[in-house]
């Protein structure tokens, strides 16, 4: 889960990372009660980068300018996103702008500290310019100093920058973050440092144990792991075949096969692996129904392919879940046609059950793919 800049900065403040005085602006009229002295920077609060170039950041010197600028920013989409809030922040005179980040490196299974003396929004950072330090043992401040030295800092900046990196790391660990980034970290003429912009991505899997962060998304905070909840998502693509599948690998393989056969997926619902802690056989059946409903309602879906493999839910249980869903639907001649691919000892009875309600049911994946693609191209669109 990504945080907006003002949410990230609230965490920075909590951890003692210096940030400028700032105020959240929900409406243009909030600017009349602004407590920060002018000049002020107004920043669009969106989840994407590049807002500066897009016009989402404006410096203003008085209330009249501020209201005009805020109106413009509220009405400016950035990568398709309109901001719901702006951040009004004091101006800072940075002599130098650094880039700092902490993230988890999957290959080495270690947190990585990243830094560059070429920070700032204009910078196109590449792997090569970034200095890296692997936190290969329990963290201690010297890892942060190691980064500062690799960044070629010297004198008092070694201590002031590594102190920031250390706080970023503590935040990273204490809040289970996927990423924490400060770009730029402004360095003033006197050597003081200030987090001028920040990005925080919270790990979704750990969100359940951070109710404070969980609440930032506007959902009710919960203490249960993500995998214990059962919120299904439809991920839209651009074709006309809906896919209901379980497991990321099998879902990807199914999409690949559809493409290869000339089909165009309209999107998919992945019910997830069976290792999902809370997923009982009964819940799998409920999720099949929810998944079919999501696909039915999705834009452009003409044919649905159900491809499910399970070690504990039999083919006939899956079939009866599909059948029970379909039997509750009012007749609609424009409803997507469903093709089911099932396997296992009970395939025959499952096939019989579904054939009886005119749902083609196959056990070979390639056959099911061919059937679905051919239907998706038929005239009955």
């Amino acid at each position: 889960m990504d945080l907006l800049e003002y949410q990230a900065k609230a965490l920075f403040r909590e951890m003692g990372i210096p940030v400028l005085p700032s105020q959240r602006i929900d409406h243009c009229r909030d600017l009349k009660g602004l407590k920060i002295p002018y000049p002020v920077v107004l920043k669009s609060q969106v989840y994407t980068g590049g807002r500066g170039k897009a016009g989402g950041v404006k410096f203003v010197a008085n209330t009249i300018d501020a209201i005009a600028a805020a109106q413009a920013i509220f009405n400016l989409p950035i990568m398709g996103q309109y901001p719901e809030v702006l951040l009004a922040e004091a101006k800072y005179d940075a002599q130098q702008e650094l880039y700092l980040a902490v993230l988890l490196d999957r290959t080495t299974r270690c947190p990585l500290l990243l830094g560059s003396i070429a920070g700032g929004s204009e910078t196109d950072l590449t792997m090569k310019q970034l200095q890296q330090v692997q936190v290969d043992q329990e963290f201690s401040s010297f890892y942060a100093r190691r980064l500062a030295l690799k960044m070629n800092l010297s004198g008092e900046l070694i201590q002031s920058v590594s102190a920031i990196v250390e706080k970023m790391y503590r935040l990273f660990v204490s809040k289970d973050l996927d990423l924490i980034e400060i770009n730029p970290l402004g360095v003033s003429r006197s050597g003081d440092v200030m987090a001028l912009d920040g990005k925080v991505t919270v790990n979704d899997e750990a969100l359940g144990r951070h109710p404070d962060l969980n609440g930032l998304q506007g959902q009710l905070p919960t203490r249960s792991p993500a995998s214990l909840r059962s919120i299904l998502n439809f991920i839209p693509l651009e074709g006309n075949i809906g896919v209901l599948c379980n497991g990321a690998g099998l879902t990807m393989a199914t999409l690949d096969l559809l493409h290869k056969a000339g089909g165009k997926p309209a999107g998919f619902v992945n019910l997830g692996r069976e290792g999902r802690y809370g997923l009982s056989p009964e819940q799998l059946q409920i999720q099949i129904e929810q998944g079919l409903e999501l696909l039915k309602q999705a834009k452009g879906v003409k044919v649905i392919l159900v491809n499910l493999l399970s070690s504990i839910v039999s083919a006939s249980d899956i079939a009866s879940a599909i059948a029970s869903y379909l039997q509750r639907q009012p007749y609609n001649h424009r409803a997507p046609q469903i093709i089911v691919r099932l396997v296992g000892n009970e395939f025959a009875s499952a096939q019989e059950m579904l054939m009886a309600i005119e749902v083609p049911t196959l056990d070979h994946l390639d056959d099911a793919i061919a059937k679905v693609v051919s239907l998706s191209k038929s005239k009955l669109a």
Partner: protein
Amino acid sequence: MNLTTSKILVQGMMEPMGSRYVPLMMNYGTPIAAGISPGHRGETIGGIPVFDMVEQAIESLGAIDTSVILVQPYLVLDAALEAMAAGIRQLVIVTESVPPLDMVRLTRKAEATGTIVIGSSSPGIIVPGELLLGIHPAEFYRPGSIGLISRSGTLIYEVALTLTQAGLGQSIAISIGGDRILGSSYDYWLNYLQQDLRTEAIVLVGEIGGDSEEQAAKHITQAIDKPVIAYIAGRTAPRRQVMGHSSAVITTQITDFDADLGTFDRKIAAMKQAKIPVADRPSQIPDLLKKALAHKKPTLQA
């Protein structure tokens, strides 16, 4: 990993996954010696005794080789540390979505203690006809000579089923797990299969994200001389970058697949460079295997 003399424990015995999968493992003949669930000492499931803690089970039953961990995601780290503290050196973590920083701490401890960890988010290991350490659907598998490794769950079932239907049984199938931070690598299991006498050929069922397939390709060139066939899922998967302002720098994530970027093309290129035949669909794997085995056999007999 030693699968032959295993005395096995299940952590999370009385929790949802325990009560669901323990009967499957038992029916398959897996020698489960005990289950762990704090507060349930003295109870039994299918004749298997339940203990409050791992060390209690060991005190009562003697040394245990392997633990299958089925507890909820936030308790996996503690369960694994408890097992390691009690001397268990083989862990199979079936639970999905363990927080990555928990896995960092877990794998660090595993390295320090010389513990083999499979997972997290792994259906585990199946030795067809002999042993099920995890949740593989047994009916898809048949005993044979093909070793399967994957990061996927259901996709490795699909491939096993395809092989079984083509008359190619499996010596063993292992999923190293689908979470971002994993206890063991393809490389470890490639070495295992290389040494496994029953395995004649290997199928690597990969997917996009990360760079473990690329690493495996390199490792195969250097250390594996049994035939290897690869299949990589995700050629057409949608992409989304989530890293931040300088997002393209390190890593990106694929929407809803929980996989860092490691593009399909890069993985295929790595396989090609390592001269590993790549199937373009699961159903092509049996043919490629048969070809490779036919080609390889004379060398083996020479």
